[in-house]
């Protein structure tokens, strides 16, 4: 039981890290540019598909993940320059609709190119095994790697935002965009870079999630909704909030799916528990979100924004 619990704990952290990578991009783009990007999940999906493509071309898993992330960075840049930058001045509603249109295009393009059947992208041989951890737990090496890479990328993002000049401008832009542009910063380049960076994070998450989830059209949407939950719980625009919320959501979701049924069966008949357990488990995250927003409508760690 203890080892099962520990394993699910790690699974929760691993899901949390993937969610963080996606949510960080979403919240960064929203915090800096006030743009709602529904197609962020599609960038995640493109990351997964590009990784499959590059794996077939290069034969190397690690190379393909890197290439996929770079490709999605390019895609994000292209998207920003061609479409998104015309929308910053528009209402959130317009953002939602245009990016909804992009989701349709992305999903159909993927179906046209790769077909609608899920593709199973295998774990590389070197990582197929289990890693022994303390307390007699064996944990899949690949998932361990995802935790490690995600953690490192998260740390890198934190350093980039807190310690570099670009990061300073991003933070400044999130707090007071008008002031930043008055100071003579090339705001359109900054915006394009931030958008593409967000895309890169989503693409990286997608490429790494390939072997864990099945690669299929529409795979971005489930993740997108969860990431929005993360972003909103954490406080829009707040990277630290996204990290905290991603971990909470990852853990609650995983733990709920693993243990809720057993917990319920302690109180109710097996039939009731068997029926209500899985239902409640999939709703848990949304119930949590509703509760948090009811008491803290701005999220857990909201940005201090001045206009």
């Amino acid at each position, binding site marked *: 039981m203890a080892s099962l619990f520990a394993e699910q704990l790690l699974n929760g952290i691993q899901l949390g890290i993937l969610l963080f990578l996606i949510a960080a991009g979403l919240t960064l783009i*929203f915090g800096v540019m006030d743009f*709602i990007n*529904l197609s962020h999940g599609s960038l995640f999906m493109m990351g997964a598909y590009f990784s499959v493509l590059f794996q077939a071309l290069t034969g190397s898993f690690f190379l393909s993940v890197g290439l996929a992330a770079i490709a999605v960075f390019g895609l994000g840049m292209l998207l920003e320059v061609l*479409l998104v930058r*015309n929308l910053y001045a528009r209402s*959130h*509603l*317009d953002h*939602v*609709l*245009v990016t*909804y*249109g*992009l*989701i*349709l*295009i992305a*999903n*159909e*393009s993927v*179906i*046209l190119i790769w077909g609608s059947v899920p593709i199973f992208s295998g774990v590389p041989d070197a990582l197929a095994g289990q890693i022994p951890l303390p307390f007699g737990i064996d944990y899949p090496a690949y998932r361990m790697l995802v935790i490690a890479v995600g953690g490192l990328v998260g740390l890198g993002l934190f350093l980039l935002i807190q310690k570099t000049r670009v990061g300073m401008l991003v933070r400044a832009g999130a707090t007071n965009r008008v002031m930043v542009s008055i100071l003579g910063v090339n705001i359109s380049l900054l915006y394009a870079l931030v958008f593409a960076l967000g895309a890169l994070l989503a693409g990286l998450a997608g490429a790494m999630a390939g072997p864990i989830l099945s690669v299929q059209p529409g795979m971005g*949407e489930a993740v997108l*909704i969860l990431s*929005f*939950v993360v*972003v*909103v719980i954490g406080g*829009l625009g707040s990277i630290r909030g996204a990290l905290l919320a991603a971990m909470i959501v990852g853990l609650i979701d995983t733990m709920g799916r693993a243990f809720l049924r057993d917990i319920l069966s302690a109180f109710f008949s097996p039939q009731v528990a068997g*029926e209500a357990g*899985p*239902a409640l488990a*999939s*709703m848990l995250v*949304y*119930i949590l*979100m*509703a509760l948090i*927003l*009811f008491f803290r*409508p*701005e*999220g857990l760690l909201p940005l201090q924004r001045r206009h």
Partner: protein
Amino acid sequence: MVGSYRMIEGVVVLAAMVAAGPVVALLSGDVYQLAVFERALIYAVAAASLNMILGFGGMVSFGHAVYLGIGCYATGILANADILPIWIQLPVVMAASALVALFIGLIVLRTSGVYFIMITLALAQIFYYLAVSSSYFGGDDGMVIYERTTLLWGYDPFDSWHFYFFVAGITVLCILLVNHLVRSDFGRRLVACRENPTRATALGFNVFAVRLVGFVLAGVICGIAGFLLANQAEFATPGYASWQRSGELLVIVILGGVGTRFGPVYGAFAFVLLESVLAGYTTHWPILFGPFLICVVMFFHKGLAGLVDRLIPGRARAG
């Protein structure tokens, strides 16, 4: 002058809306074409209710399809329990949607802006997963509805023509109701609360209450659309309450023109007809619809209703 134009537009729109299905069905000699137009009518009701809170109340609900789902399942449960008269089904559907809308409204109306968009989505997801995981309602597979709603003696719910006019009749009533609501004092108050909540409060309106009433009314009307959808499809599936469906409703409202009186009707017909025409050319129709949608948002500010206004001389500036 403007008022009479609006009257004429209303009559023309409603008449065209009802006549479109039969005309196409008779011209093509294919009675199943009626089903396409039934779908358009049902979407028009759902979109009109969303437009009421979105266009006039400024509330961007990203979970509006949940009421389609509630209406659908309520109808399905009653029908499969052999309770078929509309006099029972419709009130139950309306009460169920009202309750759910009240529950959701009490939570979401504490927030605004993007938080509002996201929390409506989250609460709708709760109901979606409820439907997906409940084996009693057929879970993921949905629930087949074997009997359509009965109305009066002589009305045969499985006769295509009878059923079409049943749907069209209820649709017209709902559209007229929404139109009446947005033009009433209540509609003005809704707009006032959108434009300037502080001033509306100062004028003595209870902003929260006005919004809540609007939210619940919209939920009830969308529930009626769900009731029609259940009868039309003879099927209830969690998909009707999914976030993609809510997205479609938003698309329809924007496509038609946010905050215009007949925008949702134009939007619903354009959406359903485009879908069915494009789907006739290629199964990959979304790849054509996506760019179309983007173009509409980028280039037509008031959607199709704005386009109609431009075509009628002297209308462009009118309210």
